[in-house]
Structure formats: structure tokens, C-alpha cells
């Protein structure tokens, strides 16, 4: 019985550990912002902890760097399961502008398994709160992979009969409808 109860309490008390493996600090500060009065993620039982041993959630910010790869993996290993990993921002989610440079390994998923992504550069604190709410099941996820296909070419093919001379210059009359 107690076992079941303990398991259920997990999402209600997420202690987060933020691991910036080489980002610019922007996401860090927004995470802090999400904990401060206006957004107050502590409403959901979220607390920032200093040691990975106490953490339930690792917030990854910044890309996985060659210099911090091992450290990041160690931090992940140091966390007791069950554990979640959030990739916050473009760097953690996709490697950022520098995803392919010599000292960057890429998105953090190359080093640790990521459970949730919060895109943004940096994400607004609301976006982070949204991500948390997503984990807690308070909201539904709002994005889905989009594949679209053009049925026809958006610009009508060039037809000489649509040309028109105005004030000495030739204009393509259909341009306005675009």
C-alpha cells in the first residue's frame, strides 16, 4: 500500500537539478524565473536542489559539449531512479546554432535519454511551466509533427497576357492576388 502511495507521489513532488552543460545561461535564468514569484513553479511541488542525488528531474540546458559529456553522464547516473530529463531550449533539444562545431557534440539526447523537450531560445517561463504541467497531466500537448504538401504552385505561371503596362513599366497583374 505504502509502495503504491510512494509511486503516486512522484509527479507531485519533483525536485529539479539544473545541469547546464555548456549553454549561454539564458535558459538557466528563465528556469530561475519560473521559480520566482510571478510563475512560482513551487506551486506544483517543484524545488531546486543542489545535488543530483536528491533530484527527480534533470533540467538540461545547453548543448552536450565534448568537454562536459562525461560530467553530464555522471550527473545523470548520480540521480536515483525514477528520473526524468528535460531538455530546455534549442541547444539542449537540438544543439543550437553550434550543433555541429568542433567542440559541440550536439543535442543532449546524445548523452542522456531525454523525456521532455521545451523548445524556445530561451523558452518563456510560462513555456517551462507548461512543460511541467504537461508532466503533471494538467495540460495536453499542443504541437504535432506537420507534413504538408503543395497541390499547386503558389504563383501562377507566367502568362504574357497578364502583363500590363502602367506608367511606362510593365507589371504582372496577378501579383496583387498573391
Amino acid at each position, binding site marked *: 500500500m*505504502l*509502495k503504491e502511495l510512494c509511486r503516486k507521489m512522484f509527479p507531485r513532488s519533483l525536485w529539479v537539478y539544473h545541469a547546464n552543460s555548456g549553454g549561454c545561461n539564458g535558459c538557466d535564468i528563465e528556469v530561475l524565473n519560473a521559480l520566482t514569484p510571478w510563475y512560482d513553479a513551487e506551486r506544483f511541488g517543484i524545488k531546486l536542489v543542489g545535488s543530483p542525488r536528491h533530484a527527480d528531474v534533470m533540467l538540461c540546458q545547453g548543448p552536450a559539449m565534448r568537454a562536459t559529456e562525461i560530467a*553530464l553522464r555522471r550527473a545523470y547516473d548520480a540521480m536515483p531512479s525514477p528520473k526524468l530529463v528535460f531538455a530546455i531550449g534549442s541547444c539542449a533539444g537540438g544543439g543550437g546554432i553550434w550543433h555541429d562545431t568542433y567542440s559541440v557534440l550536439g543535442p543532449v539526447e546524445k548523452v542522456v535519454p531525454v523525456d521532455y523537450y521545451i523548445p524556445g531560445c530561451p523558452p518563456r517561463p510560462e513555456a517551462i511551466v507548461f512543460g511541467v504541467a504537461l508532466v503533471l497531466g494538467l495540460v495536453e500537448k499542443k504541437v504535432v509533427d506537420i507534413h504538408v504538401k503543395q497541390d499547386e504552385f503558389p504563383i501562377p505561371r507566367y502568362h504574357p497576357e497578364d502583363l500590363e503596362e502602367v506608367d511606362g513599366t510593365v507589371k504582372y497583374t496577378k501579383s496583387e492576388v498573391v
Partner: protein
Amino acid sequence: MLNPENAVMWAMLVCIVTAVIMPLFNRSKRVSGWLAFAAAAISACLVFVAAVYVLMNGGGEPISFLKSRALGFALRLHVDGLSAVFLLLTAFVSICSAFYSIEYLGHYERHGPARYYSWLLLFIAALYGIVSTTDTMYFFFIFWQLMTVAGFALMRYENEKRANRRAAAKFFWMMQLACFVTMVGAFLLAPSGIVVEQGEELMRFDFVSLQSNMPALFSESPGVITAAFVLFLIGFGIKMGMWPLGGIWLPDAHPAAPSPVSALLSGVMIKTGVYGVMRYFLWLVPAESLSDFHSGAWGLVIALIGTVTLLLGTAKALGQEQTKRLLAYHSIGQIGYILLGFGICLSLVSNPAAGARQVALLGLFAALFHTINHGVFKSLLFLNAGSLLYVTDTQDLNKMGGLMRYMPVSGVTALVGACSISGIPLFNGFASKWGLYSAGFQAAPWSAYLPLCAAVAVFTSALTLASFVKFFGASFMSRAGRHVIESVSEGSRKVLDWKMKVAQVLPALVCVLLGIFPVVVFSRFHYALGRDAQGMLLSLTDGAPVEGGLWRGVEALGAKAVFAPIGLLVVLGALVLFCCWLLRAGGAQRRPASPWLCGYAWDAEDFRYNAHGYYGELKALFKCKGNTRLNRESDDMYALGSETDTAARGRAGVVAEKTETD
């Protein structure tokens, strides 16, 4: 008939005889070890029987051996309650120590066993003798010198090390001074003119004759008596490590001797000083001259000296980074507690209020109980330190760590020892400190400074705790460093023998038992001391300061202070069981892992927090910064094998490097 005095005499004889024949077995460490143990065990059994007999039935009359009327002395032995307590302690520690030595000595490759065991047995015999003789001059001198010379030889056992030789020499000369001072004191009390003839066997310097001289002396020249007692205090003070003189030799002597001897030195030998002070101050002064003695003033002085001793000794210990040296400073500190308890007793002994006399008696009991306790747990701790030295070949706490995994028996027993000395409830140290504090604080109506002294003692108790957190934490807990890993790796690993383990488990058991059943001890004290009361003690026997039963625990001073260890044990045990259930209730998996070092740490050795780092701010406040370099150098001199000497020299050449990045 085997009366207590005879038993003690036989015990001494067994020891001395075995010591004499010991060189015959010099070739085999095993044989000589077992032989010495047998001798120590037989003598200890004899003494044990004697002491228990006295504690249960009270002491008898003194018995004289080796009478010599021509020379005017006789070896008069007398085992009364006080002697019995010290004899019991000596017997117990000597058994453990001798048993431990059998295996431990195998470690010294260059030194033969005979030199060790002979002196060890003589040392034990001297200890038996000095607490049971009634002679204050000749046999006092003989036993004292026997003890000194034997101790001196044992400290010099590893005579190739300069530090040992120096420590031994210091010990020797300080003991000579103490002996001289004490004997002068005794001489002052027995001026040749006023020997009182009470019978043909009475000797001039016998205890009883000195006592009977006292009333006359008080009326004639009280100054002489004051001088004599000052000299006694100084002499025995030096022996027990009392501030300010004891600190000179004691911290050097304990680490120098082989560990089982350190246990004896600290556990028993310095207690002879306590014995002396108690015996001379309380037993010598006859009850009728109580009003002349100014016992209140003496009590004040002793209590204050005790307070200073305990504070300074413990504060100094805080800065130590070597196992045995740290323990040695704690010996000074704990002696302070004993002195404080005795001081409380002395300062209230002449108080007419019944309550005050009860408090005084409680102080005495606490001091005596603490003497026993200290003997047990400190010898235990020295044996633990010996095991550490045996396995890791060093006394430097900075190099140890994580040894709980490799030597669990020593670890657990050391924890028991540490808990005892820092006074954790349910261990014996708490019981005696509890008595001491109760006495100190309840003395408030008659003396405002005694509660203050007791409060300082409480504060010091916290310091003790801190110091043992360091001792135990840095050696057994913490993380295993490179040195430890090398020491315990296959091939070079020295495994603790069962004999060494038993020798550690035994005192640990006693620590726990005494902690849970302090009431037995208190009731025995009351019985035995009351029955053989002499001198000032006679005025204290109006009521038991401590009562109680096994279940009710101990209730001191008419139930003004209570402590029920068994009840506590039940409650705490039940709660611990509940908490253990809670630990498992969530169904959590367990997984071992290596420490979290912020993710980027390649060489874990450098990140191992060492003993040097503990309590930096506190040490700075107390201005007792241990000299690191000095400590380390001397450590290597105390290491068992001398191979490390070269390593030490190599390390001494290392200078502090530039530490900044740029």
C-alpha cells in the same frame, strides 16, 4: 587461605616470576606471547577474585609480607573498596592488552619478544602493587620505580626511533620528579619525632601511622600539612597528566609505546595518580580533623584544576591528526573530568548540610566510575588505534579512511569506544558523566562555581564529541585513500587475527554493559566504600546518593536526577525498528555508486577530505592549530616498520607549491 591480599601478592609473584623466565623463550614469539598471556591471565584472575570479593563483602585488615623490623618496613598490602576498583580495572585491561599483544607483536620484525613481555609483566605487577600497598615511602618507591622503569623500557621498545627515546626519557625524568615530590610529602607528614606506637608491626611511613599523626600535626604545624598535600597533588598530578605538568610527558609517551602498552599506560597507569590523590586526600585526613583541613578550598583548587585540565586537554586534542596522540590528549581531558568529580566531592565533604554531603559522595562515585570507564574505553580506543597502525602502518589520520569495510570489528568497537568517551547515552561514558553533571549542578546551593565547572565540562564534552567524530570519521568512515587501498590490497594485506578482535570486543562489551547497568556499579561503590570508610570519607556515609533498580534505572540525590537506561533502550530500540521498517516500506531499490564530485574529477585521491581540514574555524579560535609538518614527521617515526623513514625524508623535501593558476 586465599584472602584478597594474598591473591594480589600471588598475582604479583606470578607476573614477576614469568617475567624473569621470559628471556628463555625469546626465540618464539608465539610461545612467549601465550606464556605472558597465561601469566597475565592467572594473575588477573587472582586479582579479579580478590577485587570482586572485596566489592561484595568489604575489605579486611592489611596483611604484612616481608617484614623487616631492622629496616623498619614491611610490605603491607591492603585491598579495600578503593583498591579493589583500581585492581579490577588493572586486571581487566592487562588481560586484554596481553591477549592483544600475542598477535600484535608478530609485527615487529626486528625486536625480540622477551624484552617486551618481561617488562610488560613487571609493569602489570607494579600496577597491582602500587594500588594495594599501604606503605607511602619504601614500597611506594619500589613499585613506583618498577612501574617507571618498565614503562620506560616499553616506550623504548622500538629504540631505533629518536622520538621514542626522547619520549621515554621525558617520561622517566618526570616520573622521578613525581616520585620525589610525593615522597617528600610523605616525609613531611611523618616527622621522626612523633611516631606513634600502636603495635609492633606499625611502620613509620605506613598509611595508618601517617593518619594517626595528622591530628597532632594539625595542631602543631598546619603549614606542613598544606605543603605536604600540595606536594601530593603535584606528584600524582604529574602522573595522571594534570594541568599544567602532565601535558609535558603524556602526549609524547602514549604514542611512543606499542599499542597494547599505550592501552595500559592510558587505561591504568595514569589512574594510579587518581588513586593516589583520592587515597591521600580522602582517606588520609581523619574525620575528626575535618574542620582544620579546609577541604572546601582544596576542593575548589582541584575542581578548578580539573576544569582547566579537561578544557585544555580536549581543546588540544581537537587539533591532533595522529591517532594515538589524539587519544593521549583525550586522556588528559578525561582525567580532568575525574579531577572535577573529586573536586566536587572534596569541596562539599565538610559541608554540614545533608544534601551537600550526598552531592559530594555522588561526585566521588562519578569520579571513580569515570576512572573505570575511562580505563575501559580508552584502552579499547588504543587497541583500535593499534589495529589501525597494524593494518595501515601509519598513525596519520589524514592517510586513513574507509576502513570500516576492511576491518569491521575494529570499526564497530571503535564506534563503541568513541560513543562512550563522548558520552552518548546507553554507553558507559554517559553514565559517569551524568553522575558528574548531576553532582556539579546540584552543588549550586552551596557553591556557585561548581555548576560553572560542570557547564564547562558539558561544553568540553561537545568538544570531545567533535574530536571523536574526527577520529572515527577520518579513519573508519570517510573514503578509502590511496594509502589504505595499498595497505589492504592482496599480498600486502595484514589481517587482524581473532585474538586481536577478541581483545577489542571484550572492552567494547564492557562499555555497553556498564552503560546499560550503571546502577550495579553505583550500588557496589556505595557498599564497598561505605564499608571500608576511613578518614574524611566517614563523614559522607549518611545516605546513598544513588538508588534505583534495573528497570527504574538510577536515581541520584533523592531522585532529583534520573536516568533509566533500560527504558530508554526499549523506547529507542522500538523507534529504530520502526524507522528501519520505514526505510524498506517504500520498496526502494538499492544501488551502490561512487561519490558525486561535481562531475569533473579525475583523481579522487586529491578530493579526499583529510583529518587536517576538520574544524578549521574552531581551531583558529582556540589558537591550537596542530603543526602539520611536525605531526607528519613524527607520525612516520611512530609507524611500525621503519621502512617508511626514507619515504618521510622524501616527503619532507616537498615544499608547498604555487597554487594559483597564474
